[in-house]
């Protein structure tokens, strides 16, 4: 058997390390504790011992969605950061009027799927989500009708957003009241 040991540099005893913490776990700790949450974003851990599952509430203070509160679930699996976190909009009843979020709560954000890279982190995901509320994107629609409206008639779209957040109904879809008091 080849003598590998001699290749090992003389490290002091401090090199002894046997953390039982997995790489994914350490990475999540690093990502979470370095989150730069603005006043418009809030995380909630229903089980604080479980860092892999939490919710994020976004309350935009500018733009068309100002005054609303939007809740997302964030689920990270043990293959993070090789795989992106799974993010879904989880309003009660899950109805939100947004071109990039469908009525099931699926979110169309490139870095959550096709453009995810391990160098991205939870902060990038949170910033990306926040951006969706400042700049809804009509080119990548999930809610086609909302996107159509945004493209054709911005005024009407704005009206619909306000109406939806008050709990009104648009084209037969009843939306959830999402305005914060």
């Amino acid at each position, binding site marked *: 058997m080849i003598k590998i040991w001699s290749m090992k540099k003389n490290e002091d005893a401090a090199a002894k390390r046997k953390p039982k913490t997995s790489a994914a776990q350490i990475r999540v700790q690093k990502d979470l504790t370095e989150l730069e949450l603005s006043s418009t974003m809030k995380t909630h851990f229903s089980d604080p011992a479980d860092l892999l599952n939490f919710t994020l509430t976004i309350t935009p203070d500018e733009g068309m969605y100002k005054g609303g509160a939007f809740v997302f679930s964030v689920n990270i699996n043990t293959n993070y950061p090789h795989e992106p976190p799974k993010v879904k909009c989880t309003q009660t009843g899950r109805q939100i009027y947004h071109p990039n979020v469908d009525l099931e709560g699926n979110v169309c954000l490139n870095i959550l799927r*096709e453009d*995810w890279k391990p160098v991205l982190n939870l902060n990038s995901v949170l910033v990306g989500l926040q951006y969706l509320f400042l700049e809804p994107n009509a080119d990548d629609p999930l809610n086609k009708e909302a996107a159509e409206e945004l493209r054709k008639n911005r005024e009407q779209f704005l009206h619909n957003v306000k109406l939806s957040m008050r709990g009104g109904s648009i084209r037969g879809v009843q939306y959830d009241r999402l305005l914060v008091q």
Partner: protein
Amino acid sequence: MATEVLTNGDAQAADWPDRYYHVDQILDRPGPRTDPSFMAGDGVKDFLRSQCKILVIGAGGLGCEILANLALSGFKDIHVIDMDTIDISNLNRQFLFRPKDVGKPKAIVAAEFIMNRVPGVKVTPYYGKIQDKDDDYYMQFNLVICGLDSVEARRWINATLVNLVDPENPESLKPLIDGGTEGFKGQARVILPTITSCYECSLDMLNKPTAFPICTIANTPRLPEHCIEWASVLEWPRVFQDKKLDTDDPEHIGWLYKTALARAKEFKIEGVTWSLTQGVVKNIIPAIASTNAIIAASCCNEAFKIATSSAAYLNNYFMLIGTDGVYSYTFEHEKREDCPVCGGEALDISISRDWTVDRLIEMLIEKQDIQIKKPSLSTATKQIYFQAPPQLEELTRPNLEKKVSELVEDGDHITVTASSLPFNLTLRVKYV
């Protein structure tokens, strides 16, 4: 136990004259490039044939080739782990299996086949997950070869072998040879835990699984794959709510296939089939028998060289690209300082049992040689103090006043992360 019975019944047959004639050409004399520690002749043969214990992880496409190669080059104590059972679609390349074996555990059938075919070789199978086994189990081997198809399993075995290294015990360093194939491409690498770059160091080199923009899937499908993703990503959760999709359940795949087919018809897309559906949701890349054979041969060649010191081993990454002709490239993949598994710094700290968490943090901040701002601390099982997000900061704040010794046992590790650290710092706490 059953070994004797299974070795073609004839114990004498185990070592007939010139059985290893060709292998012995290499082992009987040193060459110009052999390692100085090479013990030509009986010394090295005895190690290879009666002492060396090797573990093969995976008994699939690569695993079958690896097991056969090892047995025929003179390894006699082989262990094999695999959690899968044999599927009919495996039979075209996993040549240790026959139609009658469909449904049986791969590890067990492969072990029996090798023992029947190659006299004197003992193959010990384990039908289950690598995660079932503890450090003591992995400690018994001289070498580990992986023929896996999952990133997750590779990350696990890599981290386990890196953490196994004990600076006071040379035996704890187990060379890991990792093979992998994807269609006509493949790679073989030698990982010397804590010495060379590890699997985690190269995680960013991986091809990411193909994913399509969710809006394309939802609105403008153009490919059969878009229809299948629509069925699995959007329709399944909508229709079945919280029921989890099991990609190994034929009924689930059947439902996806039906749903995707209907979608494809609506958009006039052709090509949705059962096997494509299964391929897309399980992320299957067609396996090519010859790629497996080349990569397995390369892995076993490395195992042989490392076990015998008969020649210089691979340093440390060999890639094969067979898509256009046959191209291969070998290079040294470098260790990453900020690798979460083999990188990062470790510190021994001796503190008094009266020290509070707050005081420990202060010490970390003041320590000139580490220079960290705003450290967050945890053990493997609990959070000690988190700087963010606010909910966790508030929740862990009371710990600042507590004594470290109430939260961490003597000799235990604390994982420290901070934005100023490349990845993390491990503290080993001793109380004085």
